[in-house]
């Protein structure tokens, strides 16, 4: 039952992933990867920004250290998500299951899991990640093989689906809880400042997210500490 619920909740994520990974497949081919290599990257990494950056390093034949550092910087937000998620999983979701399923913690899967009522079982999480993994890999293959014959208006429209899902998680919570609203606005202000103020132009997109989220959440924890029940 829990698995099926997870499968269903994963459908919008899978659709969004399919469309975004088409763009990745296209980009990988343009950077001298074969379709097989593009799909291998998607199956083993399951992350958008990290893969795009990784293929850039690959195409430039950068060093392995450079590759590792790029992934570390762009993807370290997943560590925050993993810790946050570890507080929401039930007692049976531990040990080997965490090692096995932890690889699929992505922005969108995290967003859905956090929005899920109650604790998260390994069955629910397994269901939740199944279709998105399939969608991400299939979209990559599709993009690598056929991407350049798709009308651009379709790919650009689908590309916003992922942001739509983030908004669907944040807005209802911010509406019901004023403290969440204030910390969210603070995070947006910081990320906007980092983006547009020239002094901060050296900060990568991945780091900008971490800095914004950490400062805003610390402020939230200081000014609006939550009670045990929340």
């Amino acid at each position, binding site marked *: 039952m829990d698995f099926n619920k997870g499968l269903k909740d994963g459908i919008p994520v899978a659709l969004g992933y399919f469309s975004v990974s088409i763009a990745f497949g296209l980009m990988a081919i343009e950077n001298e990867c074969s379709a097989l290599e593009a799909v291998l990257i998607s199956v083993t990494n399951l992350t958008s920004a990290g893969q795009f950056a*990784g293929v850039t390093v690959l195409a430039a034949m950068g060093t392995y250290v450079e590759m590792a550092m790029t992934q570390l910087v762009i993807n370290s937000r*997943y560590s925050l998500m993993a810790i*946050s998620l570890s507080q929401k999983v039930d007692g049976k979701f531990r040990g080997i299951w*965490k090692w096995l399923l932890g690889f699929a913690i992505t922005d969108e899967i995290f967003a859905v899991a956090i929005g899920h009522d109650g604790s998260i079982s390994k069955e629910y999480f397994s269901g939740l990640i199944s279709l998105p993994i399939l969608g991400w890999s299939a979209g990559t293959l599709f993009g690598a093989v056929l991407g350049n014959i798709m009308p651009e208006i379709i790919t650009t429209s689908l590309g916003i689906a992922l942001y739509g899902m983030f908004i669907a998680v*944040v807005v209802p919570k911010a509406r019901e809880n004023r403290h969440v609203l204030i910390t969210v606005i603070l995070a947006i202000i910081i990320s906007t400042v980092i983006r547009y103020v020239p002094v901060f132009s050296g900060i990568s997109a991945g780091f900008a997210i971490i800095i914004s989220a950490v400062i805003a959440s610390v402020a939230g924890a200081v000014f609006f500490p939550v009670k045990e029940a929340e």
Partner: protein
Amino acid sequence: MDMLTFLPYLLVMAGVTYLIRALPFVLVNKKIENRFLNSFLYYIPYTVLAAMTFPAILYGTNHMISAIAGLAVAVFIAYKGKGLLIVAVGACSAVFVAELVLMVVR
């Protein structure tokens, strides 16, 4: 690309990304009791998602106008309390329509 050149890069890329996710997930096993940490972790999902969305969403389509249309429609539908799929479909449709209009106008 030559497979033998490719595979070590793939290994580094996938390995680092995997450890970033799995290590903290596995290592944090207990419920965190510290009130400050709990509060911090309570806000993290929403601040991470918000910082990821804005201002990046403005550059997610071909024209900023269609992105703003998608953003506005998504916020409106989400405010009405609709689920993930409906919000996502609404945002995509808004972008599609806006891009169509822009194509016709220009």
